């Protein structure tokens, strides 16, 4: 797959191809022979390319963002961990039966500050993808994440989670080992974890498997990440009995970072380098790092009880209600 391979990237791919051709060494001689200023031509094209990229990537549709969030070269949790933290020591296993490699967890330092880190990890090649179940965790993975988070909390260390999953595993073993209970347990336990917590949706925030690592004092999303109750394909299948209408479903679900911010469900959208995080993972990681340091400094300064109260109030504030029917049955509530 070329860097710009999606349909909506066509104008960019064409300019990139043109630029690539002009930069070939033999073209220079050719241009000189014809009296053409190659450097000027390249500079003009580069300007056009930047212009086209700003145009395209500044106006991605929810479905195009979905494709970006799932891009195979997008930085995954371990890339972010490597690029953001000073160091990283992985910790394994749920102490019950397995080490689910769909989730990674461990200890790290952020500019010298010790913290725990967890995240879903997709695989790069087929072998790794199978080993990590494509980043779709079973109960074992969620329990490992919680174990490491609670251990960190015992020693007052903050917890950072990277969310990047199409969803939790829904196979026989997942069901046998209680994947639902594990997700629910994480939601409850992270809501009362007595240390500062930040979650960053870096790619796909797929449903219950995503929110299982997504309860935090601050929730950030990368600019082209998505967060949704259901995959657009699944939504389209239910709504229109047609998986091909995923683009329409993505619109309806409003699954972009910008929509999540508008709905008041996240705190910040972290800008990606022009063209997406996969074009410059180091720049994307630097942006996340800056945001992490800022948010952690803010919430680390808070009183512990105030932090937990704020976290609960934040969760309690989620919900949109319709108007009360006029003259309707008022609540029997006497509280």
């Amino acid at each position, binding site marked *: 797959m070329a860097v710009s391979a999606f349909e909506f990237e066509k104008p960019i791919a064409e300019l990139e191809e043109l630029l690539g051709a002009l930069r070939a060494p033999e073209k220079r001689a050719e241009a000189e022979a014809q009296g053409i200023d190659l450097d000027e031509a390249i500079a003009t094209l580069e300007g056009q390319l930047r212009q086209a990229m700003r145009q395209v990537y500044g106006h991605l549709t929810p479905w195009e963002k979905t494709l970006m969030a799932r891009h195979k070269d997008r930085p995954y949790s371990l890339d972010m961990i490597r690029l953001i933290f000073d160091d990283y020591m992985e910790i394994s296993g749920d102490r019950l039966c397995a080490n689910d490699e769909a989730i990674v967890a461990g200890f790290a330092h952020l500019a010298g500050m010790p913290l725990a880190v967890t995240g879903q990890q997709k695989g790069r090649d087929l072998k790794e993808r199978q080993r990590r179940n494509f980043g779709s965790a079973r109960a074992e993975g969620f329990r490992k994440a919680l174990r490491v988070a609670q251990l960190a909390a015992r020693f007052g260390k903050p917890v950072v989670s990277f969310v990047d999953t199409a969803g939790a595993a829904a196979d026989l073993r997942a069901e046998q080992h209680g994947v639902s209970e594990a997700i629910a347990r994480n939601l409850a336990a992270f809501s*009362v974890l007595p240390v500062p917590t930040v979650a960053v949706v870096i790619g796909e925030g797929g*449903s219950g498997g995503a929110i299982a690592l997504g309860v935090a004092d601050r929730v950030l999303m990368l600019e082209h990440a998505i967060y949704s*109750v*259901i995959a657009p394909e699944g939504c389209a299948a*239910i709504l229109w009995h047609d998986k091909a209408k995923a683009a329409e479903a993505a619109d309806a679900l409003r699954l972009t970072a910008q*929509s999540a911010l508008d709905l008041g469900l996240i705190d910040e959208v972290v800008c990606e380098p022009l063209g997406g995080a996969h074009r410059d993972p180091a720049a994307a990681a630097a942006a996340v790092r800056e945001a992490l340091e800022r948010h952690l400094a803010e919430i680390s300064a808070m009183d512990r009880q105030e932090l937990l109260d704020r976290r609960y109030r934040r*969760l309690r504030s989620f919900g949109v209600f319709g108007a009360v*029917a006029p003259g309707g049955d008022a609540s029997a509530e006497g509280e």
Partner: protein
Amino acid sequence: MAAGWFGRRSKAKAMESVPEGIATKCGGCGEIVFAKDLDRNMQVCLKCGHHHRLSARARLAITVDEESFVEFDLDLAPGDPLTFPDYLAKQSAAEARSGLRDAMVTGVATIDGLPVSIGVADFAFMGGSMGSVVGEKVARAMERGVEKRLPVVIFSASGGARMQEGLVALMQMAKTSAAVARLQAAGLPFISVLTDPTTGGVFASYASLGDLILSEPGAIVGFAGRRVGNQDLGTHLPANFQTSEFQLEHGMVDRIVPRKDMRPTLAYLLSFLSPEETHGR
């Protein structure tokens, strides 16, 4: 995770051939059974024991002491946070079908004289799916438990998070689970009752956090819909995959309780989980 409420269409079709209100085709044995017989037997088939779904009102009637139920939060009505296609029309249709503003009825009541904060889901309202209203009512039921020092009992029946409310619906999983955590931290018990079906975002949030988890026999209980599971796994699934019996077998449910035993079972457990001495209750 999100609710699609599969299967209702085919059931509705099967019932069309039978005069409405007089008899119905049993979803368990396929026999035509008289509505009167079902009514007399808590909607449990006399022939095969199949537990038919109950409305929230019918469930309350067979669960709590007569005239003990006081409903709360009646004024909560669903919004349309995403302006999702056809959602408002679906809400109206669901309200007409169920007589409810949304898929959860909550309040306080007594069971065998023991006061509880109680919630009952109604599958007839958009498949019992959890959007803002269901999430809010569950959270308030938990908070009412803390305020009034009451144990909490919730009967779930839900296809999962309500797709039409998108990420707002997904967040209800976190909201309800956080409220359970506060209830339990306050030293109060939560008994979760899983009825047919309890799947997706409801099973993966508050419904799995009961100090005790009961389920009706033969209920569909699982993470993904059974249909999704079948597609993913081919045919290598146990016959009872994603049923209450499967969940019992794997340690996720404490007891399978037939409908006629639910009320005395709840009374027994509530008296056990009460902090006070309960001799001679």
